[in-house]
């Protein structure tokens, strides 16, 4: 049963606006400019937020909807914004993200884009992907999924494949909860089974720090050509519920079948993926992967002494929450007191939690009194200080910890590292409580 705590406001929100998710998705694509259609604060807050989270340059722009005339609703700011971005930055395409304000105003974005094309035919070669992101609806994962689906639906076309391939090609539709460490593990694993992969979107590139020069547009993520090639893939793997809409588009329009994984965190989930890879390719798992599994098994055994009798509470967007919640409860055997989340998609309702709450970090604080530790983003730090509880940082934002985005939470390696990290928190508590 999902609870909603009756209160009139949100105190210490867990939820981020959907524009934040949509922009994040675009940062994983090559040479795209996310353009936020709204007052400049929507973009400025989000830029600040993501810059501190990734510790990277995060290109994005705003149409800076400003004076009263624009509030009433003509599209000059939108047109000028798109034209300026194309002129100055020369992006491969633009991700046009609307905001609560432009959605309330009822902007007809599609109509406005048609008028833009009539007015500026010289910019015809730059696609503009509109994504509706009213911040009074949905959360960051919703916006992320919407941006990915909107991009696919504008860019891909059903076409007969003309190239000859000796290897099979698989799309990995990567959910917002995945880190650069996770994406690296996925690429390496799929390639080890002789598959070519397209990761979409690929945040491990610019946001993973692999671009060592200054960039005005995100680089080395999924490019427009690669996105178009996704139509010709043999299969799609969905990681996280928020990417299912993208998989559906590829299935319906290009007949690319897909398999959905709600999570790849934990031994069981990884086994399921590897079994699928073995079935699909007819190949055996590589030796490095077997070794990683053996180490994960050993880590769980070593750490299990401290797991027992512990309890935790967790807050996060649904996909993030589900994977960690499932691994810690069903495989580590730690009791889950409260899970707080922000939207209703994915499989989180199946978690064996005493409370599942659609809410904020105040609810987490209120309903985690019996928990030994907290799993949440860095906004929960003041709350953990007040309650004298250790925090394990996950999700967005993580502002006070270097290298968070390179931690691995999925696959056998992620299972091992999580067993160690959570085990260390529990073991430290044991040592403290034994009076040392």
């Amino acid at each position, binding site marked *: 049963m999902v609870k909603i705590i009756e209160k009139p406001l949100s105190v210490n929100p867990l939820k981020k606006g959907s524009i934040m998710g949509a922009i994040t998705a675009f940062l994983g694509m090559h040479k795209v400019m996310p353009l936020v259609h709204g007052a*400049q604060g929507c973009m400025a807050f989000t830029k600040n937020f993501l810059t501190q989270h990734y510790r990277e340059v995060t290109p994005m722009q705003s149409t800076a909807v400003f004076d009263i005339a624009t509030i009433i609703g003509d599209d000059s700011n939108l047109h000028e914004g798109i034209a300026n971005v194309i002129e100055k930055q020369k992006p491969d395409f633009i991700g046009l993200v609307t905001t609560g304000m432009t959605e309330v105003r009822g902007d007809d974005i599609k109509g406005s884009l048609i008028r833009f094309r009539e007015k500026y035919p010289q910019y015809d070669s730059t696609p503009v992907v509109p994504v509706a992101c009213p911040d009074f609806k949905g959360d960051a994962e919703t916006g992320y999924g919407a941006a990915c689906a909107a991009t696919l639906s504008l860019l891909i076309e059903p076409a007969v494949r003309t190239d000859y391939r000796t290897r099979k090609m698989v799309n990995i539709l990567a959910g917002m909860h995945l880190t650069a460490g996770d994406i690296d593990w996925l690429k390496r694993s799929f390639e080890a089974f002789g598959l070519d992969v397209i990761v979409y979107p690929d945040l491990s590139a610019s946001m993973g720090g692999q671009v060592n020069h200054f960039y005005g547009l995100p680089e080395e993520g999924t490019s427009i050509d690669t996105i178009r090639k996704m139509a010709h893939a043999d299969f799609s793997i969905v990681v996280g519920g928020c990417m299912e809409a993208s998989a559906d588009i590829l299935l319906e329009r290009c007949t690319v079948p897909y398999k959905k994984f709600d999570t790849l965190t934990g031994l069981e989930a990884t086994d399921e993926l590897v079994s699928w890879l073995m079935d699909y390719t007819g190949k055996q798992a590589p030796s490095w992967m077997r070794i990683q599994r053996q180490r994960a098994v050993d880590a769980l055994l070593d750490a299990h002494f401290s797991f027992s009798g512990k309890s935790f509470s967790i807050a996060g967007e649904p996909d993030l929450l589900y994977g960690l919640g499932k691994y810690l409860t069903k495989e580590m055997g730690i009791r889950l007191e409260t899970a707080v989340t922000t939207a209703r998609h994915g499989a989180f309702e199946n978690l064996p939690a005493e409370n599942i709450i659609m809410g904020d970090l105040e609810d987490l604080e209120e309903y985690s009194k019996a928990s030994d530790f907290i799993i949440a983003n860095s906004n929960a730090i003041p709350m953990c200080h007040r309650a004298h509880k250790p925090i394990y940082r996950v999700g967005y934002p993580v502002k006070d910890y270097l290298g968070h985005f390179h931690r691995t939470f999925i696959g056998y390696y992620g299972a091992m590292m999580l067993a160690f990290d959570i085990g260390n928190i529990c073991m430290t508590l044991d040592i403290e409580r034994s009076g040392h």
Partner: protein
Amino acid sequence: MRLAIQQLTEEPGCDHNQKKTAEQKKEACKKPTPGATAGGCAFDGAQIVLLPVADAAHIIHGPITCCGQSYNNRGTRTHVGNLHQYGMTTDMSELDIVFGGEKKLKESVRYVAGKFKPKAVFIYSTCVTAMTGEDIHTVAKEMTEELGLQVIPVDSPGFSGSKNLGNKFAGHALFNHVIGSKEPENVPMFPINLIGEYNIAGELFQVEPLFEELGISLFSKMTGNATYDELCYAHRSKLSVVICSRALISLARQLDEKYGIPYFEGSFYGMGETKRTLMTIADMMGSDLLKRKVEELTTRKEKETMEQLAPYLPIMKGKKVLVYTGGVKSWSILKQLEELGMEVIKSSTRKSTEEDIARILEYFEGNEDGLMPKGDGKTLLKYMKEYDADLFLAGGRNMYNAMKGQVPFVDVNQERHFAFAGYEGSLVLAQKICGTLTSPVFSIVKKPAPWEVSFG
């Protein structure tokens, strides 16, 4: 609302506006260019000014983005409470927008008043709630009566303008609803208002001891480390010192007009500016004793600081700096860097007034090459290279631009963790500058990778 915005953009105390024609004055301060803009909105600006008041609650009336992406992220430090760390928002849903959110806002005020027992509640309007015509003024009035707790409406829809305008909105709310609403029990000898000092990273804590030693009372601090009550008492001060904020000049002018409190602009960046600011206070207080004490204190502090700076000065001597920061800071930091023996090759003039620019030009001895109107990361890195600069000094938004360019960098913006004010601050700044200048990281990262080395 419209009227209020017009009034605020027609600020006579702002020399930006003195030169404008009547027609130009009706236009708000410079408009951002769609698709080529940086910086926050009016709501952001209003929060910068008011959020440091940590014994008051701050409820943002709007959908999630305004609060969800911004809270728990201000560099302000305080000893008076912890409500500045809390994000509180009505988190408007689609239904709230259709049926109106005033009832929800009232219930939110009741909830917050009951649970957190704040000294006051600030309620902020945002783009969406301003567009749908939510009447936060009536809500504030009714809730003030119902709860016997001051509820202050802050008109701050982001679309109305830039961060600077938002600062003014906040000043407007303070002047109309807060200042003069309570009377202090006693007024000390030399009471002053400190306007536009937000105690970023504890900068106020660096200068507070100086005031204590001089016997000058920081009677009403707006708003770093301020209690709500002291804001109410601002009308009893003898003098307003406006620190690094052209936007709040309007508040100082209003205090002058209504209560006869004179004002001037000061700064605590650098030893010279700190002395000038303290001396001006003593001068305007008309106390010779105070003047002598300032002379004595600053001479002693300068000597002490120079001794402490001794190991750092040779490292900084003659090093070339590119400065990219806004407003008043752009010239006061130049002076601070000059004191440390560094040479500024270019400084930004964005958000600077004519007067600020004149002061920057003075530094560059009239050479306009030193002025840099606006620059994106790429342009700034180009200047670094072109002028063979050693250090880049700018706000946090440029930090990772600098790291992509692999150049030494010091953050001087509001999310930083280090304070650079007064005498102590000059030492901290010197330490941070030397730390980045002498880091071995920059030479090691410039080494070519093994596969980039050509043989033969």
